[in-house]
């Protein structure tokens, strides 16, 4: 990354300075090039002035050595042109009482702005004025660069998350900031919400144009390191001077590269982006309609689609993403914490959502190295507004089914109807009456000096299998007589008869309530 930025004024800006206006400037050639940057102001009378310049200078002259020699006048202009001077300013007076036509035509041909001063003044006043401004701008630029760098470095060393960094960048830029990967997928944004939404609404189209044309106010800096190119940061509609915008974008890019390199590979930016989106969706704090542009920009197809909210228990998000790619299913994957990962599938309307969810779950089993993750689903919905409730329902189902998966005969995709009583108990788990009921019913097994966790496990399996003794014995690797002894011990401790349906049901509900408390 290079910072080839010079704090500059344009020719047009110099001409509007009070001191210059007093000299009654008139642009006599190159009027279409007044936005050229002026890097320095230089007084030069010599005909071969070009050799002394390095480009970007506004050259001031009285023309005293050029008067009367049209060939020299043309060569003077050409020399400035070859040296890439920003403009030439001719003070009218003894040498040239009127704008010299030969010089004017030569400057016009070269596209070199030529300005005459009808009321010349000492050039020293102009050089002092312009150069002090240039120095002030340069100092301000260096100062801004340093303060942005210090702020961002401070955040990185304090372990700030990516979003905090982007917020800081947006604060300095005063416009929406978008971080995108090479596929133009938006990974994170910052800035005023409605302005960001405006940018995201049409992101795919405008992203490809960003930074292409001059003056489009989209400032872009590439992100990469160690020979790899990762993505880009875009300041969208930056309203300040473009060199300052470029400087900000480059400082931001440096900081983001540093952040990524120091951050390790715990969560890629893509993962963080999906996580933030799906978490916001599931929490329901932000209206789903407002999250639609973010979803679209994150690469999820959203127009005329069927959405399938899934929550997977004990699934590795990276492996889930890999399986989605393997199957060619469009979707987002995000870790929700506590062993749960959300997957939001986006299918074409004519596709069979239930069949594809089952296909995904089946392939997940064959592709998973560690066991068979539980895949919980809510009903598919064609309205985006239905997604948050769907994600919450899938999460609820996944949590409800979290225990006893070995004992339960679950379908490959578990739905609300499959968790039955378990689902209801989970919904009521924070109710104090339910909690005290569970404690009361299971007191004999949970308390006392000789509490046996093994008996609780046997009870759990016995009830989950519908009081199937041979299956329970098989799952606990014990003989049937041994199981009978344990069941007898359980009945004695609890003071219940497990052959009585109501008593068994009561203990079962208590156990489900107990288990939901201990997850």
């Amino acid at each position, binding site marked *: 990354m290079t910072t080839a930025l010079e704090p500059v004024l344009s020719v047009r800006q110099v001409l509007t300075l009070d001191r210059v206006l007093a000299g009654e400037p008139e642009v006599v050639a190159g009027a279409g090039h007044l936005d050229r940057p002026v890097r320095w102001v230089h007084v030069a009378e010599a005909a071969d002035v070009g050799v002394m310049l390095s480009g970007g200078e506004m050259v001031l002259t009285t023309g005293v050595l050029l008067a009367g020699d049209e060939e020299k006048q043309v060569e003077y202009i050409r020399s400035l042109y070859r040296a890439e001077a920003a403009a030439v300013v001719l003070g009218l007076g003894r040498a040239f009482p009127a704008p010299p036509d030969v010089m004017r035509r030569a400057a016009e041909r070269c596209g070199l702005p030529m300005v005459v001063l009808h009321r010349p003044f000492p050039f020293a006043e102009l050089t002092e004025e312009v150069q002090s401004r240039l120095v002030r701008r340069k100092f301000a630029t260096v100062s801004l660069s340093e303060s942005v760098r210090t702020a961002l470095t401070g955040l990185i060393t304090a372990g700030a998350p990516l979003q905090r960094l982007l917020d800081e960048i947006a604060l300095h830029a005063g416009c929406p900031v978008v971080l995108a990967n090479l596929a133009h997928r938006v990974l994170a944004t910052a800035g005023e919400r409605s302005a960001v939404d405006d940018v995201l609404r049409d992101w795919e189209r405008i992203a490809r144009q960003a930074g292409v044309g001059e003056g489009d106010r989209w400032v872009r800096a590439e992100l990469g390191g160690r020979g790899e190119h990762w993505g880009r940061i875009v300041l969208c509609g930056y309203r300040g001077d473009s060199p300052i915008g470029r400087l900000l974008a480059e400082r931001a890019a440096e900081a983001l590269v540093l952040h990524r390199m120091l951050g390790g590979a715990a969560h890629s930016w893509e993962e963080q982006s999906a996580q933030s989106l799906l978490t916001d969706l599931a929490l329901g704090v932000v209206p789903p309609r407002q999250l639609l542009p973010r979803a679209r920009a994150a*690469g999820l197809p959203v127009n005329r689609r069927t959405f399938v909210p899934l929550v997977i228990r004990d699934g590795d998000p990276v492996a889930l993403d890999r399986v989605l*790619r*393997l*199957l*060619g299913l*469009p979707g987002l994957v995000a870790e929700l914490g506590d062993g749960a990962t959300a997957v939001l599938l986006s299918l074409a309307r004519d*596709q069979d959502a239930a*069949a*594809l969810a089952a296909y995904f779950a089946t392939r997940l089993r064959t592709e998973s190295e560690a066991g068979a993750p539980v895949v919980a689903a809510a009903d598919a919905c064609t309205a985006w507004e239905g997604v948050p409730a769907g994600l919450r329902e899938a999460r609820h189902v996944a949590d409800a089914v979290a225990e006893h998966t070995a004992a339960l005969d679950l379908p490959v995709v578990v739905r609300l109807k499959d968790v039955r009583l378990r689902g209801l108990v989970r919904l009521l788990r924070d109710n104090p009456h339910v909690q005290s009921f569970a404690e009361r019913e299971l007191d004999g097994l949970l308390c006392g000096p000789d509490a046996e966790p093994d008996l609780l496990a046997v009870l759990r399996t016995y009830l989950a299998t519908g009081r199937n003794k041979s299956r329970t014995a098989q799952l606990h690797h014990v003989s049937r007589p041994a199981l009978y002894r344990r069941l007898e011990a359980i009945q004695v401790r609890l003071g219940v008869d497990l052959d009585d349906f109501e008593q068994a049901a009561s203990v079962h509900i208590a156990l489900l309530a107990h288990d939901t408390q201990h997850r």
Partner: protein
Amino acid sequence: MSRVIRAAVFQTAWTGDKESMIQVHEQAVRDAAAQGAQVLCFQELFYGPYFCQVQDSAFYEYAEQIPDGPIVKRFQALAKEHGIVLVLPMYEEEQPGVLYNTAAVIDADGSYLGKYRKTHIPQVKGFWEKFYFRPGRSDWPVFDTKAGRIGVYICYDRHFPEGWRALGLAGAEIVFNPSATSRGLSAYLWQLEQPAAAVANEYFVGAINRVGVEELGDNDFYGTSYFVDPEAQFVGEVASDKETELLVRDLDMAKLREVRDRWQFYRDRAPGAYTPLTTP
């Protein structure tokens, strides 16, 4: 209601042996069919490593008869079972010592429709293809499949605009470009040439590239397979540059008509002025 073709491409890494490579691709057929894909194209020389990184006659044994070899038969059965059109880029033996870089096209009922033999054969470092293949002269076939009218233009062919045009003139709606191309060599062209061909010829292009570094050389195959429409817009996202991935995309043929109504490239071309192009 416009016609939409659900089309798929599959990119993957060399597994280390031919049989498991074939099985990975058989699974991809099942996965694509599960999503309702009507047509699926694999990567160049799909069941082998990209052996052109070296010049070794041992790899001649990867060549098979088309359509009478076992691999085509195997995938004909699969195409029929799942009702999907398959484009199979393979190593073809016409007769001993006469070998081609070919793509066989199987219709959704399992019938063999024909083949395209790669026309332009490279011979540069890491791509020693002249050692293995005779240039094809296939007269730019376009296959009238159950999914739509499909052309194939293999890997290095894509650098030559003439073939793209010939396939357009023959009525292709989708042209598949199965490839094996490496990061250092062609990454800057990969998202430039095929979108340009899609625009110039006003059809859809499906570009496929394998992934990974294989044991035969340093070529870093960078995947990033994609579909692009006649306005040079990617249809959905571009695939990963490292992972095995199936892309299934809905290609709306109304877009093709819309663009051809807007730009009359086929009407305004001037074949009479192009004689120097066909002068050897």
